[in-house]
Structures are given as C-alpha cells and as structure tokens.
C-alpha cells in the first residue's frame, strides 16, 4: 500500500530526526510528560491506596471518588484546563499544564484503586500471623502486605503508564508537543507519511513500555507467588 511506503519514507528521512520538531525531541517531550505525570500521580495515589488498604478506613469514600475521576474524558479535561492554566502562566499554561494535569488525573485512579485492592485482598490470617510474631504495623505493610500485593500493584501502575502514554497524544490538539504533534501536523498537512509515522511511533512507545513493565514485574514479584491468581 502506498501508505506503508509513505510512512517508511517519512520515518527514514534523516531530516525528521533532528531539530526541535524532530523525532528524538518529540519523543523525549512525550516521555518526559508521561513520566512526570505518572510519578506525581503515584506520589499521591500509591501511599494513599496502601494506607487505606492496610487500615481499612475511608475505603468506600476514596475508592468511589477515584472511580468517578475515571469517568472523565481526557479530551474534555485538557480543553477545560486551558483557559484557567493560561491565567497562571501564559506560556506553559497554554502548552504544558493542561496536558500534564489531565494525565495526572488519568494516572491516579488505576494506581490508587489497585493499591487499595491489592493490600485489602491480602489474606487476613497472614496479617494476623505477622502481627502475632511481633512485627510492627509498618513492618507488616512493607514486609508482608506489599510483597504479596505486588502483582496487583504493578498491574495498576503499568496500566496507568500505558494509558498515559497513549492519551498524551491528545495534548497535541491543545498546544502540547510530544508524538501527537506528528499526527496533528500530518492530518493538517494531508501528509500521510507523517501522520502514520506518528501513529507508529506512539504505538511502538506504548508497546515497549508495556513490555518493559512486564519484564520488571517478572523480576520483582516473588517466585513464591507464581501460583496465585493476582487480585
């Protein structure tokens, strides 16, 4: 098909690999945004999820609101933030903040809900045995609950990461760069090579991230949990 040829041509053109609008810099932009939003989301969602899972308090409240946030369409969230963030900072508020915040909102719920569910699903007998052996609460959380809940925890983070990478492309419609920029430009200029080139790049990035996480999970999760169904 002509499309494949055009895409291949676009991807192999060395000019597209340099400069501010080149593939590497857009890739970096995309990764940086995804990484930062994932990190910030995890910074809040992970401890919160672990804590309510361990203590059992407020679980209904927190989880229900997390699920509510899940329903929000990212496209709308980014668009809505623009008028407000530009008031804060005319430049970054126009290009960066809306997408960044929307991605944090996107990544939070899966991380939180999985952290909560993972810890809550740890067999109560095991927690009691740990307590009976003289472990302090924090030691129980870190030494017993988290390792056992790790598969579910990791799934949450992985799922959030892939979603963020894929959805960050929407930012390109609202002033952000990243790999979505190629799709937007390709669409605007009727340049199928660029458009599909962008698609290929994003898909590749998302799938690579997925694979990396799966490998990491394999390494980190104890072999003793192999037989147990996650979650």
């Amino acid at each position, binding site marked *: 098909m002509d*499309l494949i040829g055009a895409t291949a041509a676009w991807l192999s053109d060395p000019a597209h690999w340099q400069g501010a609008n080149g593939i590497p810099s857009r890739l970096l932009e995309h990764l940086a945004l995804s990484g930062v939003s994932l990190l910030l989301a995890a910074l809040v969602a992970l401890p919160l999820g672990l804590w309510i899972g361990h203590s059992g308090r407020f679980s209904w409240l927190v*989880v229900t609101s997390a*699920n*509510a946030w*899940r*329903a*929000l*369409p*990212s*496209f*709308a*969230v980014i*668009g*809505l933030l*623009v*008028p407000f963030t*530009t*008031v804060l900072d005319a430049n970054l508020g126009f290009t960066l903040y809306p997408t960044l915040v929307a991605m944090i909102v996107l990544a939070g719920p899966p991380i939180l*809900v999985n952290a*909560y*569910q993972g810890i809550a699903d740890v067999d109560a007998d095991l927690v009691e045995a740990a307590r009976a052996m003289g472990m302090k609460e924090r030691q129980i959380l870190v030494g017993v609950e988290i390792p056992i809940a790790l598969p579910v925890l990791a799934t949450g983070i992985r799922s959030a990461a*892939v979603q963020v*990478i*894929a*959805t960050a*492309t*929407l930012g*390109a*419609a*609202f002033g952000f760069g990243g790999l*979505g920029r190629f*799709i*937007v430009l*390709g*669409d605007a200029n009727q340049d*199928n090579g660029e*458009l*599909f080139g*962008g*698609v290929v790049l*994003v*898909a590749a990035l*998302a*799938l690579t991230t*997925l694979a990396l996480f799966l490998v990491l999970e394999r390494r980190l999760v104890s072999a003793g949990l192999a037989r147990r169904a996650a979650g």
Partner: protein
Amino acid sequence: MNGEPLIRWDWLFAHLGPIADRVGQHLYLAAIAVSVGFAISFVLAAISIRRRKLYPFVTVLATAAYTIPSFAMFAALVAITGLSVFTAEIPLVLYTIVLFVPNIVAGFDSVPWDVLDAADGMGYTRGQRWWRVELPLAVPLVVAGLRLASVSTIGLVTVSAILGDSFGGLGYYILDGYHRHFTTEILVGGLLSIGLAVIADLGFVLLQRLLTPWAARRTVGG
C-alpha cells in the same frame, strides 16, 4: 481571554438549540458504538469461551489495539476510509470490543462450577441453564463492562472532533472554543461531555444494583 467575562451567557442562550443537537449527536454516536460493539463482542466472547486456545490471542490483539491512541486511530482511518460517520464509528466500536470481550468472558467464567453442576443435576437443558443460570450470574461483570465501555466511548466521541466540524458531538465545542480562545464554548463542551460521562457511569452503577439484588458486596472498580 483577558478582559472578557468568564461566561458569555448570551452566547449560551442563543445556541441552546445547536447545543442540544450536539448532545443528541454525541449520544447517538456513542450508542451506536456501544450496541454494535456489544453485539460483536458477544459473538467473539462466545467463540473465545468455546475455543479457549484462541483467547490469549484475542487478549494480545485487544491490548495492542488499546495502546494505539484514539487520536491516532481517528486520524489514520480518515486517510484510509475517508471522512464519514462510518470512519468515526470504526475506532469507537473497536475500543468497545477491546473492553467488552474480556469482561464478558470473565462474566461467564465467574459462574461457579458447582452451580452449573447443580443446574444440570436438576434437569435444566443446556439452553435453559444458559438463560436462567449463567446469564443472570454473568450479568454483574457484563454490566461492569458496559459501564466501562460507555463511559470510555463518550470520552472518545469528544476526540472524534478532530475529524472535522460536523463530528465530535460536544467535542466540537471544546476544540472550536480552544481555537477561538472562547472560554464559554470550551466550558459548554467540556462540562457537558463530562456530565454525560458521569451520568452514564452512575446510571450503569444503578443498573448493576438493580439487576443483581443477590449481590452482597460490590467489587471495586468493576
């Protein structure tokens, strides 16, 4: 946007008609995608359950499809199938399939085998067992899938606004408002699409509660 009032109520009231049309268009696009997607998914799920070996294959395809951003898919498909409602619907349907099939399969898997055993033992035919036992018990997870897919589709319809002015339902206002630096329009598009998504979410939560009076506890997240 400086020096302008935040909301231009006059514009809002002048455009109530078109806004309502857009809401209708939004729901229409979403409904088509969800129902068509559901039908196809049901068939795919049935096949997956019958032929277990195919299932991992289906899961991998689904995950791969989901990683392709909706944005990209809309733009890409325009190049292939041209600009039309059909083009817009393809990715929408595809994404619902990706969400439905695992949920439907899991739903039927969740029926405890001893319940099926008892049903057979009591003399249910295959068909009766499916209709009266398996289906009702599979409902919670299937409805959870419906909830997820509907909310997701409503969100994706907004993205389809990039295809052009006649598309995107309420997403049109978001994009148009953005390009024109017109806050009111963005607010209308954004808040209404969020509203639709939240209402759909709550609606399905309610439906799930109604359809499963026997469920003692709800699982988190669906």
